[in-house]
């Protein structure tokens, strides 16, 4: 599963080898190598953190926590395995920890304008209007469910990888993705029909 970035990394075994090399260079003290990994996975990490937390600023804080935690734990990374799932597990945990620490209701994490469901007065583009609806719909889902569907449908991770990231059985991941999709597809269908 490739992360998105201006310069797409190689696929499959070559990608794993390339990222293992970047990890090795980082462990050897090459700061720039870690910078490449951050640049490569920043968009994905930020989206995953947003899926967990909702609030963009807090999500960026969590994504940063995740990257720095990964840097500290880099010696524990198994270089024979892909880097992305390992990193996303750390980012998702960082976001989840942050959400738990705040101990606030889910709706409080969102822009109040999004929770109401209707388009805001300054909405201009149809796409952004749909985006607002989707963000609101995502926010209504349980945190684990929205994280699972984002990791699967947006980031392209397998059920097995997501199960490992979230520390839940693979069957639970399938169930979470299924229920999240049903809700989101219904919203999309309603929005298209309106």
């Amino acid at each position, binding site marked *: 599963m490739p992360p998105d970035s201006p310069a797409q990394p190689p696929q499959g075994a070559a990608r794993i080898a390339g990222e293992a090399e970047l990890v090795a260079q980082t462990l050897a003290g090459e700061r720039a190598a870690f910078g490449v990994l951050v640049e490569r996975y920043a968009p994905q990490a930020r989206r995953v953190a947003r899926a967990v937390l909702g609030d963009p600023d807090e999500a960026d804080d969590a994504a940063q926590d995740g990257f720095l935690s990964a840097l500290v734990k880099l010696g524990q990374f198994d270089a024979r395995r892909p880097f992305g799932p390992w990193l996303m597990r750390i980012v998702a945990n960082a976001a989840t920890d942050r959400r738990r620490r705040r101990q606030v209701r889910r709706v409080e994490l969102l822009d109040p304008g999004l929770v109401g469901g209707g388009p805001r007065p300054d909405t201009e583009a149809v*796409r952004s209007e749909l985006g607002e609806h989707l963000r609101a719909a995502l926010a209504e889902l349980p945190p684990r469910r929205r994280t699972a569907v984002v990791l699967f449908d947006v980031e392209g991770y397998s059920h097995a990888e997501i199960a490992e990231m979230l520390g839940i059985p693979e069957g639970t991941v399938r169930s979470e993705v299924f229920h999240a999709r049903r809700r989101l597809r219904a919203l999309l269908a309603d929005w298209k029909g309106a």
Partner: protein
Amino acid sequence: MNDERTFDHRPDPELGAALRRALDSVDPPRDDQAAFVARVMARYDGALADATVPTWEVLAAWSRRGIVLAAAAAVIGGVLLGRALQTPEPQATLDAALTPIALINATDPPDASVVFASLVEQR
């Protein structure tokens, strides 16, 4: 999009693209990936420094523990040594302590009343 009634093991491209746009286009816009990368890298040294415990601190922790253990061992050793010094030397033999010299040196068999009397005197 796929039929929602059946579970598809493949990612849904349409839903995935819509969600990706929704998560990327937050308000205010957060397309500043370079700024985010710079922000993470600015904490690079700090994160490593926070995670690294200096060697001398490890040694200091060990030496503190060693001092405590050595002190405890010294106290225990002192108590044992003191007890050993205060304990009186044991008597040579029980027989020697109980038997009067007169009885040992006598050539004739002792009278029973004398032996009894000597034992009573010992107590």
